């Protein structure tokens, strides 16, 4: 069995670095103006260079998503963006448009991955996309492990499979809800998540059939337990969704999947419940295995209003340590109080508890509380911490599921 790539979202430079440090083999980011995530999570070229240097220094890869569907007036900017990204040295482009795949292949030797937005669900399509120039296909989230296994046996491009994160309720690329209802075209990176709004079912005259809300929205995907089967089915890359998620989420989810993949390779048993609990500390949306075990039916739908907000568990991230002063510098995200007991999630997935013995601000002034997000604070502790350690509250959290 070949070790699959673990591919993580890069919603920002910081998140990309965290993902790579916590075990991702590669990260993908949205190219500015031409990908499927809002401007908040897309990268200007100036940042791409720094990311490439960081990733390549670790022997890891960076992919750029240019997966919006351009209109005629957009074609020039898409083509210019592709040229620039290739020049920058990204390891692959993720494209949704077959025409842009063909156009890119005619000009550049770069690896091309077909976005799930194109919806290549059978071997004839995949072979055609390969002939256009694609080396990898990101499969639709509607395929089962059995489907993936069957495709793997008959097609030559690598197959990339989503394993964690948000699930479109519709077939990707085939949803016009957001564009129609809020003038935010999902195929050009502006999805308003209209499937999560409140709907009711009625008859043709508009009479409600029942009072229960009609669920269009799907539970998030979580495939930790299915990783060994996906590896056996030939998935070359296991993809985590969520360029808009937090650093805490990225670190926690990547770490959990890293451990699950490594356990499957080493044929050891990963603590599934522990890994799931860890993920729920970073985000507590309802999850399901999607279509990986077959059509999920009602169990795949969100029945109640989903709680998607991250809690205040995430306290900060270690940015540097000072040998001389013994201080650990932290980029603060939630309130840290002097003498707090804090847990550090390390890049190898282990955790460590420590006490905040002293705190100073950047001017060296003692502090008893740090409660301004993005404030830099130096913590004194006897515990040995490292850059990229994620600091969070000690786990007293009750699992609600």
């Amino acid at each position, binding site marked *: 069995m070949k070790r699959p790539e673990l591919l993580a979202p890069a919603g920002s430079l910081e998140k990309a670095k965290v993902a790579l440090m916590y075990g991702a083999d590669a990260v993908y980011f949205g190219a500015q103006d031409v990908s499927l995530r809002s401007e908040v999570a897309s990268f200007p070229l100036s940042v791409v260079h720094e990311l490439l240097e960081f990733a390549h220094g670790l022997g890891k890869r960076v992919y750029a998503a240019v997966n919006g569907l351009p209109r005629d007036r957009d074609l020039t900017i898409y083509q210019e963006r592709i040229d620039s990204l290739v020049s920058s040295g990204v390891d692959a482009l993720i494209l949704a448009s077959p025409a842009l795949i063909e156009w890119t292949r005619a000009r550049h030797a770069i690896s091309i991955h077909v976005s799930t937005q194109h919806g290549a669900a059978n071997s004839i399509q995949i072979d055609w996309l390969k002939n256009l120039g694609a080396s990898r296909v990101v499969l639709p989230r509607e395929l089962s492990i059995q489907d993936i296994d069957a495709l793997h046996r008959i097609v030559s491009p690598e197959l990339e499979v989503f394993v964690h994160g948000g699930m479109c309720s519709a077939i990707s690329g085939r949803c016009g809800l957001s564009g129609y209802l809020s003038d935010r075209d999902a195929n050009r990176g502006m999805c308003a998540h209209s499937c999560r709004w409140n709907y009711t079912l009625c008859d043709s005259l508009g009479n409600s059939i029942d009072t229960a809300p009609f669920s269009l929205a799907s539970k998030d995907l979580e495939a930790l337990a299915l990783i060994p089967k996906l590896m056996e089915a030939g998935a070359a890359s296991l993809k985590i969704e969520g360029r808009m998620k937090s650093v805490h989420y990225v670190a926690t989810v990547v770490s959990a999947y890293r451990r699950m993949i490594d356990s499957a390779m080493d044929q050891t048993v990963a603590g599934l419940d522990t890994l799931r609990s860890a993920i729920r500390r970073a985000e507590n949306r309802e999850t399901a295995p999607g279509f990986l075990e077959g059509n999920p039916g009602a169990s795949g*739908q969100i029945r109640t209003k989903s709680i998607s907000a991250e809690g205040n568990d995430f306290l900060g991230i270690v940015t540097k340590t000072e040998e001389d002063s013994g201080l650990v510098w932290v980029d603060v995200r939630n309130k840290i109080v002097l003498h707090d007991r804090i847990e550090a999630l390390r890049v190898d997935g282990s955790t460590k508890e420590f006490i905040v013995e002293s705190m100073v601000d950047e001017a060296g002034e003692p502090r008893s509380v740090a409660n301004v997000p993005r404030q830099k604070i130096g913590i004194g502790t006897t515990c040995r911490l490292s850059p990229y350690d994620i600091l969070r509250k000690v786990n007293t959290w009750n699992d609600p599921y």
Partner: protein
Amino acid sequence: MKTPQCLVESTRESEFLRLKEYGADGVLVPSPGFESPFDAPLTMQDVQRLITAAKTIGLSCYLTFDRIVYEDDLSPLIGALKDISTMDVDGVFCADETVGLCATSLHLPLSVVYDPVSLVTSSLEASLCANHGFKGVVGSADLSFQESLTLADRADIAVGISLGKVPLYRSKRLLLRAHMSSISQTKTYALKEETRPGRMFPIAENDRETMILRDQEVRLPNGTSYASLPFAWLILRRAGMDDETYFQRLSELRGLPR
């Protein structure tokens, strides 16, 4: 420039003559096993009968494959395409490019038009289809009328547009069955969104997919001259409309007062 063909959806030969009188140039008939959730299921015998009936009165006849094609659909798809290629059809409209790729690789004498509703957004995309055996494309329903004109003007392939309550959403999830234990085959359903009172979005599902339509119809801008449109086909979608409204829209489209 040729006048666009006006294509209508029908599975009832009894109304073909009336459709022609109201201005239809051709009918679209769903292919057995590849219907959309809003289509009535037919047999190949039904299809043969409808083709004959259309041709007898001078209507073109096209078949539709309005479904996403997964790996286990390939064998039935190839069988259906082979059957259809022996019939007197004018072409095939498909939601999934696999249909055209299959027809091309099998060298079947079928004119295939790619109509995915959402994915053909530029002339570059449309022209790619021309180089891979497709006879035409239908532009994305998200395009403005002006963008559709640009697409038709620049693409090296015949371009059509869809009118009526076009599909808005397609899912492999069977949402009606997930919501209630049984669904009526005769009842029509719609969704209401809480902040848009009075607006209803038709929804239907079959064993394979759920589809939701727009609540409002796509119509040509006022004052448009039918004959001068640069499109090869105007497809007047029927789902979500009653018969009376459908005939009225057809009549309006062709400018033939009734």
